[in-house]
């Protein structure tokens, strides 16, 4: 059967709306260099590389080939995986399977995006069916606004509940030197910010960032040798939904329910709210930080607003979520979900700096993308 695998190094760029000082390949090189430094390795120690992003964003075909210089992939095995918004977790999972398969010992997974050079919303719009749904579901905000509207109606959640999440994540970002948007905001500020698509307001929504992230995976024997406290992979699960948006369930997140249920089963978790010490979740809008908590089995359907209001997910709460500031503070799309894995790994490794949650033994990371794809990865301090 497969090998046990740990994360032994993480690197990310300083993220910004425009990184005019670096090309895409240079951003990748920045993250790769930092991940190697973090793991105290050189590129010679890396056996294979996986990369991903979305073709149409920067209009680069064969990103794996184009990025060879930045990746350090010259004369190395490299390949590309891509699944839209979940690309980061897809890349991470692929790095994990490279090692778990026993074919490679030390593998680097890399995600990147230079949104300042792309027309993201136009590209995203092409993911939906060209004749039936492209006109109605153009861009990323509309579907998210739709689902929270329906959740509000079904369970009495409010715009303020989402604003609590937005303020939480944005203030957490003040502790993260890599975060793109670092500003102290109040719930009031969020509620007063311009409406983008009801009920989602400007400060509820993620930005578009330039940046990259690299995560190094290693098989058990190597990880133990190379790293004092690897973040062991306990589960990696993906679930997706129907092709057409109109076929989706909107008041809960079936894919997240299925993916997390399977991941919890694999990791032997029965009470996620209690057993996880920290979570880095792909929440593209603060509204998801309310609605999706149900679907992660933290509570029953419709109970999430209560937990949010209680501060359960704040830094000093029962389960701190997004100490890094999350996606609404930093969003280089192809890297965004990989940053969740990287940040969760750092929390387990005790390397999260000012945003460190004390004594993390079990961490949850998720990815979210087009067509309600949900990715879940569970990392732990103990071997699985």
């Amino acid at each position, binding site marked *: 059967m497969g090998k046990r695998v740990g994360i032994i190094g993480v690197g990310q760029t300083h993220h910004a709306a425009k990184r005019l000082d670096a090309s895409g390949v240079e951003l990748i090189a920045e993250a790769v260099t930092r991940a190697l430094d973090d793991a105290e390795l050189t590129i010679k120690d890396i056996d294979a590389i996986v990369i991903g992003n*979305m073709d149409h964003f920067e209009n680069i*075909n064969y990103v794996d080939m184009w990025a060879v210089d930045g990746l350090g992939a010259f004369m190395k095995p490299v*390949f*590309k995986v*891509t699944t839209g918004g979940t690309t980061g977790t897809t890349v991470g999972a692929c790095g994990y*399977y490279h090692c778990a398969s026993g074919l490679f010992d030390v593998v680097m997974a890399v995600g990147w995006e230079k949104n300042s050079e792309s027309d993201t919303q136009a590209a995203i719009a092409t993911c939906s069916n060209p004749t039936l749904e492209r006109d109605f579901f153009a861009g990323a905000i509309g579907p998210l606004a739709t689902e929270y509207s329906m959740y509000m109606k079904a369970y009495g959640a409010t715009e303020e509940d989402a604003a609590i999440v937005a303020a939480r994540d944005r203030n957490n970002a003040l502790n993260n030197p890599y975060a793109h948007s670092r500003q102290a905001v109040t719930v009031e500020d969020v509620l007063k910010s311009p409406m983008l698509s009801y009920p989602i307001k400007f400060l509820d929504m993620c930005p578009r960032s330039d940046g990259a992230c690299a995560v190094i995976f290693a098989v058990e024997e190597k990880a133990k040798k190379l790293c004092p406290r690897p973040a062991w992979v306990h589960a990696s699960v993906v679930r997706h939904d129907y092709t057409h948006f109109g076929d989706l369930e909107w008041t809960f997140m079936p894919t997240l329910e299925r993916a997390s249920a399977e991941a919890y089963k694999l990791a032997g978790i029965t009470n996620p709210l209690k057993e996880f010490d920290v979570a880095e979740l792909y929440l593209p809008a603060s509204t998801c930080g309310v609605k999706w908590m149900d679907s992660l089995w933290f509570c029953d359907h419709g109970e999430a607003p209560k937990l949010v209001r209680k501060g359960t997910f704040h830094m000093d709460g029962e389960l701190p979520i997004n100490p890094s500031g999350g996606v609404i503070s930093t969003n280089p799309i192809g890297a965004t979900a990989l940053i969740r894995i990287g940040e969760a790994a750092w929390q387990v490794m005790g390397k999260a700096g000012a945003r460190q949650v004390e004594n993390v033994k079990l961490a949850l990371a998720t990815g979210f993308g*087009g067509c309600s794809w949900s990715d879940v990865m569970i990392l732990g301090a103990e071997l699985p």
Partner: protein
Amino acid sequence: MEKVAIIGVAQSKYEQNKPETFAEMVYDVTRRALEDAGITKDEVDNVVSVSSDFWDGRTISSMAIQDSACAYGKDITTVEGDGTFGCLYGMMRILSGSFGVTIVVAHHKGTESNMNGITNCAFDPLVERKLGIDAVSSAALQARRYMTKYALKEEQFALVSVKNHGNAMRNPLALFPMEITVEDVMNSRRIADPLKLLDCSPVTDGAAALVLAAERQAKKLSTRKKRVWLLGVGHCSDAYRLGDRDLADTRALKAAAKRAYAMAGIVDPLKEIDVAEVYDAFSYMEPLWLEGLGFCEDGMGCEYLERGYFNFDGKLPVNPSGGRLSANPVQVAGLAELAECVLQIRGEAGERQVGEVNVALAHGINGMCGQSHCVWILGR
């Protein structure tokens, strides 16, 4: 290490202007590959789609085909590149112990795409792209370099086209089965010097699917005749910029092949391998890659070809299916090769069966001028 087998294969007929949508093509080959394996979709627990946003003209291109690949409620992921890389990820996912029966499926509609524009976008956006360079013109540079380095002639490359289009006459799935002569190739329209129309693979639509299973499951689910084992694999990438490489040097392919041979325990490839499906999107590529694969010395590919080594009845039949020159749905190419190797090993290749095959080789490339290669060894 546990072994992984291919227990089911299916390919569409390769055509131009296929009326089916991506989803319909994928549904067709997925269903038939499961039928070939003799299992139902309930026995599959994950799906690797091979898909390209550029070629599909659609962001998250795999979204459009996931339902028809029977991925609903399952773990699905997408490899972007040649089908050989998709198969590799399928094998990794099984070997990791996380998954059982795996579908790898690729689709491509070249006739709904703009080959020049799409392959132009594979080049550096600041400098090279402006030159208008694309897959064909960069291949022409490579062909020219190969000719210069080893004093080769266009007529020698034309022989590949004659051989492979001729082979395609035995393949009912091929797009362009043709009986042609070296003269026909030489007289065909010049596309990018030294490449003529008949040196280039056609724009093609099609799909292919494989069903993979780990040893234990494979033995439970399929008969000995159906099981073809993935014995070895290797992949490797060279530098990005054409100017940073000697285009007639196949170092990345050599590294990939070395890994695949080592894994499969192959010492003398020419002796031990019975049939090869090699990436021949352009005629010159076949001898060049055969050198990289170690079937002959560097620069000797064309001579071996002339001596008939790689003919249908030669010492090592290469591309008995007709190769990419006779049908080249880009992402699908590698999966089609793997499927052809499976049929050869099973003895089910019909008129294109080259005799008894124990070990077969499939080879796919990513990037321009074979920047990255993936080499597979399959066997009984």
